[in-house]
């Protein structure tokens, strides 16, 4: 279908209606609300409860207007946020109708009767719709002389959201958001009349992953975020549009900076991605930068075995000397921007002359390498496909935990038209429960998919042998759309930038001579390395057996890979590019401080493959992006990569473009069911959205809403083990053990599930693997 045809179709499909508002005609699609039609004319009707993404409520009554249809006027003013336009409708707003104006002023007066004079201490002051509209549509002075209703203030409805009931105008935006958008109806309006108030259920605290949005959409200061409380006024803040660095959803964000420090982050506006929402991690997890000790100057490990501060030229020269002519590998990590990942990729190929580079700091498989090299970059599935999908299949992927905005999109369709959701998870997560997901244990048993179906594959599918192959098979056979959704923000971009052994930038296969020539010409080098490169664990292994001498590590937590990864770095030359002091800087020979997201410009690629660029928020920062530092090292080594700035890198990436030649065929692997020995259970795990992740450091309020770790087993298994709900289990492997309370769930008898990286449940550190056989006994 051409765009013209599509336009024609939408035009014929939607009936247009013309209404007269304040004497001006406006034509809008049928079903448009009067308040929205007025907006189109630039007429602003005051409102509190109305929100374009929530269902109309007509709760605050502030938007009253005079309406007349076919010459018959409504006897009283009507709420323009609940009435759709009709033919022959004549609307008179406060601008032309004295009745509407008086009605609005009256409502404003009612709302202000019990509203406390908190403006000087209220966080909303200065950006408050109630303040603004009381100025524009209210009385200059109050006539109320009685005693205002008071409530205890503030009430913490979760560790990160505070409720001040006195300030509430009962617009029900927060309760509607929680119910309609997030599917977490943990807050509700209690009581009636003057005592009506927002409240939480006693047994269910407001532990929604999306609770921050209620703070953002609250039209008064009734809901405020604990971490931003009393911190600043809007006029203090410099707002910068940015992109979220936490997951691959790709949210547009707004970062508010005061004197070189991030004070808060808000969801940005992008209808095609996050609409106007984001998750609590994106909103509140930004203190990782200040909570740990920042690396402020380059450091070199001296003769005495200690790290000493050094000047930049010294450190660069030291790093270059340690890498030049040595066999070295590169571990990029999944958090790099596209430009930085490209820098690592070019640095490995040009300066180190190797294909030993990998961005995966997590469990993976050979099968995944093949999948990423051949299939992943060609996937064109987008959020729109989810909107139109007839079925959504989740494989090795928990949208609410691993890509929360994807979850919101699925939930939106689920709520609208009961979208069928199928999940291969061994146990239903809360997200799966909310989506009423149908559980399947074998991908091969999925049937009935059509070309409109969407298969969302997570990075964890790589942990099941042959599962990725089955997913590709399923997509090929049914024609369903396939998407690969990694958990980290940088992975898709790193793949596209060639930060993996098998691919050069733009998806060019290393094995293709023409692709190598292509890139070598663009990079002005004679040739590129041809030998097959190593992946993450292979690089680490090669370091221990001295097949490699040196390694460049950029923002990797070794514990995400394996519990021996850190010790594998010990005896080689380690160049660490880091923001803060970490376990890697402790073993590094050279530590080079790099800029964090707020201090640099760059871009991420979300799971759709679209670029989410962001600008420097702290413009006077002296910290440099990884790519700049790599470029300096390469210069010093005498093998320049010529990437002096992020902008230059972005230009080079754009000029290089994507590979349009022959692709590697995906070699499928046959599925192998894990064998479970007698008396053992098969453990699976995934990360919860809020856990011990490094980027969530230093935000205790956020951590307060993290879900508690528990081991989930079936009812009959619990009976066999003789444990009741809440009693402790000891889960052990050859390498270690965990102790967790039991949560009885509906699942197979030989399965056990634990969170991957939560408090008391750090699976890689404690058990040595993320899925495998464990011995489970009552603790």
């Amino acid at each position, binding site marked *: 279908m051409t765009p013209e045809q599509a336009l024609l179709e939408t035009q014929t499909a939607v009936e247009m209606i013309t209404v007269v508002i304040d004497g001006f005609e406006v034509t809008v699609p049928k079903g448009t609300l009067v308040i929205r039609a007025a907006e189109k004319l630039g007429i602003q009707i005051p409102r509190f409860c109305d929100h374009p993404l929530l269902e109309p409520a007509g709760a605050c009554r502030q938007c009253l207007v005079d309406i007349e249809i076919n010459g018959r006027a409504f006897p009283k003013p009507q709420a323009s946020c609940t009435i759709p336009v009709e033919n022959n409708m004549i609307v008179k707003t406060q601008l032309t109708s004295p009745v509407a104006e008086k009605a609005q002023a009256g409502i404003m007066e009612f709302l202000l009767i019990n509203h406390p004079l908190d*403006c*000087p*201490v209220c966080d909303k*002051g*200065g950006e408050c719709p109630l303040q603004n509209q009381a100025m524009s549509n209210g009385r200059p002075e109050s006539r109320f002389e009685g005693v205002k209703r008071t409530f205890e*203030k*503030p009430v913490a409805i979760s560790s990160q959201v505070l409720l001040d009931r006195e300030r509430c105008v009962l617009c029900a935006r927060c309760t509607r958001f929680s119910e309609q958008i997030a599917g977490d109806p943990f807050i509700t309006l209690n009581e009636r009349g003057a005592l009506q108030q927002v409240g939480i259920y006693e047994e269910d605290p407001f532990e929604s992953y999306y609770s921050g949005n209620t703070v953002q959409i609250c039209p008064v200061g009734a809901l405020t975020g604990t971490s931003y*409380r*009393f*911190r*600043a*006024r809007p*006029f*203090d803040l410099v707002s910068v549009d940015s992109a979220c660095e936490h997951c691959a959803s790709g949210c547009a964000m707004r970062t508010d900076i005061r004197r070189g420090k991030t004070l808060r982050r808000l969801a940005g506006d992008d209808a095609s991605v996050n609409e106007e929402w984001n998750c609590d991690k994106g909103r509140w997890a930004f203190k990782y930068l200040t909570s740990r000790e920042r690396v402020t100057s380059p450091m070199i490990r001296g003769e005495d075995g200690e790290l000493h501060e050094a000047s930049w030229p010294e450190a660069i020269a030291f790093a270059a000397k340690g890498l030049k002519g040595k066999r070295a590998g590169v571990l990029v990590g999944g958090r790099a921007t596209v430009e930085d990942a490209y820098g690592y990729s070019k640095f490995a190929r040009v300066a180190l002359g190797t294909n030993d580079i990998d961005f995966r700091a997590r469990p993976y498989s050979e099968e995944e390498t093949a999948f990423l090299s051949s299939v992943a970059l060609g996937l064109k599935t987008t959020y729109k496909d989810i909107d139109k999908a007839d079925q959504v299949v989740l494989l090795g992927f928990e949208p609410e935990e691993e890509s929360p905005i994807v979850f919101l999109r699925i939930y939106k369709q689920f709520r609208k038209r009961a979208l069928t959701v199928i999940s291969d998870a061994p146990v239903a997560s809360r997200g799966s429960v909310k989506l009423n997901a149908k559980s399947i244990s074998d991908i091969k048993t999925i049937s009935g998919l059509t070309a409109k179906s969407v298969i969302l594959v997570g990075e964890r599918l790589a942990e099941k042998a042959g599962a990725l192959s089955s997913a590709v098979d399923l997509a090929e056979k049914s024609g369903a759309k396939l998407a690969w959704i990694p958990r980290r923000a940088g992975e898709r971009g790193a793949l596209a930038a060639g930060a993996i052994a098998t691919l050069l930038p733009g998806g060019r296969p290393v094995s293709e001579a023409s692709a190598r020539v292509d890139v070598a010409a663009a990079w002005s080098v004679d040739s590129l390395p041809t030998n097959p490169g190593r992946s993450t664990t292979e690089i680490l292994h090669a370091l221990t057996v001295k097949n490699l001498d040196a390694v460049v590590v950029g923002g990797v937590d070794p514990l995400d890979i394996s519990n021996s990864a850190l010790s594998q770095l010990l005896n080689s030359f380690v160049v660490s590019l880091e923001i803060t002091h970490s376990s890697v800087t402790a073993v590094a020979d050279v530590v080079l401080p790099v800029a964090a997201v707020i201090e640099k410009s760059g871009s991420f690629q979300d799971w759709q493959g679209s670029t989410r660029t962001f600008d420097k928020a702290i413009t006077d920062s002296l910290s440099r992006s990884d790519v700049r530092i790599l470029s300096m090292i390469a210069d010093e080594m005498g093998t320049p990569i010529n990437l002096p700035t992020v902008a230059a890198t972005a230009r080079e990436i754009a000029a290089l473009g994507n590979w349009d030649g022959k692709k590697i065929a995906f070699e499928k692997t046959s599925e192998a069911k894990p064998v479970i020995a007698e008396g053992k259970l098969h453990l699976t795990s995934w990360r919860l959205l809020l856990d011990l992740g490094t980027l969530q450091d230093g935000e205790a309020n956020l951590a307060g809403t993290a879900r508690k770790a528990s081991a989930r087993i079936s009812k009959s298994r619990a009976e066999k083990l003789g444990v009741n709900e809440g009693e402790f289990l000891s889960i052990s492997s050859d390498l270690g053990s965990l102790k967790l309370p039991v949560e009885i769930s509906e699942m197979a008898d030989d399965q056990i599930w634990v969170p991957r990286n939560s408090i008391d449940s750090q699976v890689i550190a404690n058990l040595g693997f993320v899925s495998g056989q464990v011995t489970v006994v009552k603790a």
Partner: protein
Amino acid sequence: MDNSLTPRSNDLGLTAAAKANTPIKSQEAKSFGKQLQGFWVTFITIFKKVNTVQYPEVKEPTAERFHGRHQLNRYDDGLEKCIGCELCAWACPADAILVEGETNTEDERYSPGERYGKVYQINYLRCVFCGLCIEACPTRALTMTNEYELADESRAKLIFEKEDLLAPLKSGMLQPPHPMVPGTTHIDYYRGDIKGGSNG
């Protein structure tokens, strides 16, 4: 055009003929009486009371409402009136005020209510003493004293911190942090019902 002053540049543009036609009037000749008037004023002033003050040996009080250095006031029990709302900073036309708020806790209370000003700076290199900040203050925490001796040898010293601006502790006042008077709320403070003394 006769007596009006013409710009010099225009003089240069005049032709010789035009110059010849321009009437030149001797103002001095006609103003002798006016000169006498001027000297008379000088002469009379000799016999008037001298206004010169031998500052700094002698200091005279300023007008009662003179806009001098600011002061952050306290309630009678010593708690600070400032709630850190930043309205003063907002009102300031010279961007001379910087405030950062913070939450009062039960263990560490500086002001009645939930919020207090943790950081309070006034930059007297910028301040124009207009008093808009005083008008903006919702709790009368910020007022101006009559103190005008605000000179110093470095720029840094002219940025006054909260401790420089806070009113001195009078008798019966206790240095915060300390709790509110038992049985009272911030409302009682705002209404001015707290009179002297503190529970300590």
